[in-house]
């Protein structure tokens, strides 16, 4: 006796949630839909996502959105104007430049830092972690001790030392942050790898004659990615803060680049009388960091298989 499968329209809710997917595609989409639903349940996570999307839009259309040139100011007539002055919504800085325009263009730098650091640091961490977790033995010992060395220094101090050695500039700041932020990812990837290193599906792949390279690349890494994504997203706020910190100390982006941290540094001198010069970029950093944190939180809840109940 067989119960006829009720016909579902493709891409409908039922089709996505079906516990008997008829194709790989349906299974994958269904899985993504579940993750999205769990993510969307979390209102704060949606706020985070909205902030991030806003950041992307602002960065992409900076040329259109910015009312003024971010690097050419009017020193003579428009210096240190308070927020709300006609034409200068968030006021102007000590070079007579529009703070709003600088914030808008600065979002590009912030995104650049975040994306490049993620692109450099996450793969390094992933490779080091999975290789060391899967190989074990002396490879594990060596790689993990190196990781330990990096972890022994506070991130910012190490980044400072690196930038001081490489010379100030946004590229070097990105490099320094990337070099200092991979160790936690390696640790996570290794821990994840260890949990399924001896599981049956790995053994099965092995029996089928897969090389360790293939196993790590095709079977171990994909399983580590979701926890890594969560961690990277949660770290983004920290990366933004470190980049801003380096900029504040004059080691990050160089003038006239409208980097938010450097903007705070130049506004510090006026904090008693012209608070907005330092406060506006401060707010920008706060909002974007908050956005990344909320998003990361939501992603963790959504991607964590242990809480998925499956």
């Amino acid at each position, binding site marked *: 006796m067989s119960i006829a499968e009720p016909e579902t329209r493709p891409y409908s809710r039922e089709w996505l949630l079906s516990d008997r997917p008829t194709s790989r595609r349906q299974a994958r989409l269904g899985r993504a839909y579940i993750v999205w639903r769990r993510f969307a349940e979390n209102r704060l996570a949606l706020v985070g996502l909205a902030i991030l999307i806003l950041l992307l839009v602002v960065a992409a259309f900076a040329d259109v959105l910015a009312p003024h040139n971010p690097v*050419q*100011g009017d*020193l*003579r007539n428009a210096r240190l104007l308070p927020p709300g002055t006609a034409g200068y919504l968030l006021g102007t800085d000590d070079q*007579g430049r529009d703070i709003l325009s600088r914030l808008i263009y600065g979002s590009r730098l912030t995104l650049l830092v975040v994306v490049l650091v993620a692109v450099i640091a996450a793969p390094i961490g992933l490779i080091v972690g999975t290789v060391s977790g899967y190989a074990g033995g002396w490879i594990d010992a060596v790689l993990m001790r190196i990781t330990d060395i990096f972890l022994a220094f506070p991130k910012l101090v190490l980044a400072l030392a690196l930038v001081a050695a490489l010379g*100030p500039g946004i590229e070097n700041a990105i490099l320094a942050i990337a070099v200092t932020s991979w160790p936690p990812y390696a640790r996570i990837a290794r821990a994840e790898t260890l949990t399924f290193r001896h599981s049956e599906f790995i053994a099965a792949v092995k029996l089928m004659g897969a090389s360790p390279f293939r196993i790590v690349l095709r079977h171990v890494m994909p399983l580590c990615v979701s926890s890594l994504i969560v961690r990277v997203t949660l770290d983004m706020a920290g990366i933004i803060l470190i980049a801003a910190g380096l900029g504040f100390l004059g080691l990050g982006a*160089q*003038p*006239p680049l409208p980097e938010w941290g450097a903007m705070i540094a*130049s506004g510090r001198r006026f904090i008693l009388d012209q608070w907005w010069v330092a406060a506006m970029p401060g707010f920008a950093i706060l909002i974007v960091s908050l956005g990344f944190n909320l998003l990361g939180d939501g992603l963790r809840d959504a991607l964590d298989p242990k809480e998925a109940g499956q």
Partner: protein
Amino acid sequence: MIHKLNKRFRMLSTSAALSLMLLAVPQAFAVTPKDTLVIGLAFDDIITLDPGQAFEFSAGEIGGNSYDRLVRLDINDTSKVTPDLAESWTVSDDGLTYTFKLKQGLKFASGNPITADDVAYSFERSVKIDGPPAFILNQFGLKKDNITQKAVAKDANTFVLTLDQSYAPSFVLNCLTATVAAVVDKKLVSQHVTNDDYGNAWLKTNFAGSGPYKVREWRANEVVVLERNDNYWGEKPKLNRVIYRHMKESAGQRLALDNGDIDVARNLEPNDIDAVAKKGTTVTSTPKGSVFYFSLNQKNPNLKKPEVVEAMKYLVDYDAIGATLIKGVGEIHQTFLPKGILGSLDEKPYKFDVAKAKELLAKAGLKDGFTVTMDVRNTQPTTGIAESLQQTFAQAGIKMELIPGDGKQTLTKYRARTHDIYIGLWGVDYWDPNSNAETFTSNPNNADDGTTKTLAWRNAWDIPELTKETKSGFVERDPAKRAAIYESLQKKVLASGPFVLVYQQTEVAGVGKGVKDFKLGPTFDTNYVFTVSKD
């Protein structure tokens, strides 16, 4: 219950600890004492108080208030000198011998009499200690091996100084107003000599002078205390004590001034000046002997072109910078001699003019501009001005990259002639036009291994004729003719020199209520505090 108790106990112990801490920290004065002047000043530059070795701004100020010299600058007309310990002086006809008659019956703070022997000893030790300011005396041929023959006490009240060639008397006397020529108490210093150091180690933190105030103590980056010298020969100071408190930040000084913790704030930045002025604090200012400039390395093929040099001078928004970034701390000034020095020329032919600059650049074959770097020290207002220049240069198509660094980094690069553009402050070493002329317009050997590393050399500006003209300046004995030489030098630098002068530094002080007659002098050595009184 236990929880509650615990909580209460914790609160109690915390507040007890807090109040203990409050007690331990010295209470800030609500008002400064009536007989004491308290000055907030960043004096982290002081290395030593020995007048024979000190060459720092703050140490100069302490020296100016505590040590006497043969002659002092005339505060009212800084192109002249007035007698201090010397009563009168004569210059021999060949210009080699200077004879000083000392005032009679003067005493050091220690009570020892001031004699010509002390003066000769002071010259001897300054030359032999060979500190940074020793060159001021060395340039007259006073060297380690001949100083005891060249600076001689003829009798108790006659001091004779012999030079190696005839110099302009104004040049010699101007140099003798420097702290390095201050007179120390030979008897007292001799008691503290270790290893033939002329008492240098002892005098670093101690005092052996005769000025209106004596130095009671100096604690690095903390405090300098001056006390009235009751043996002073002139009009005695009205206040018993002057205390310098080390305060680095402008905002900190401003708050302390508002609270009455200090009487005078000395390192206020433009916006803090505005703020204290609004609250009714008196703001006093005097132009100083420092000029702010940026210089174009002539090794750079683009910067070498005369049209580019001229164009750069049109690409500074002088008016806007003067009205904003350096408001209160500087005045636009375009010649290399600061106002107040003999022969100083006050001409401002250049205005911000992008069209003119573009035209000049086109003539130089650089219609589309070029790329250049500028080494910038990480302090204000240098960074602010550099950023402003970056913007105005961009309007003429010149793309300038700023390379930030601390003072040491940028200077090292500058001295090695590996910069494109250097921006910074240049202060006169001694109050005479030769001080700046010698560095801006003299370059005896433009080779990389040249030994006279003047500013002209640092920018690889090869100028044999100007070097000769500069030399004629310090031997010309007629002051009027001498001034004319320096005017001509300034005009030449203004027209074609690779130095773009932007402003002359003004020193500013916020003076609290009740303080009377506080005035800043034209040099750091003449920031006199002994004329001040309080209500």
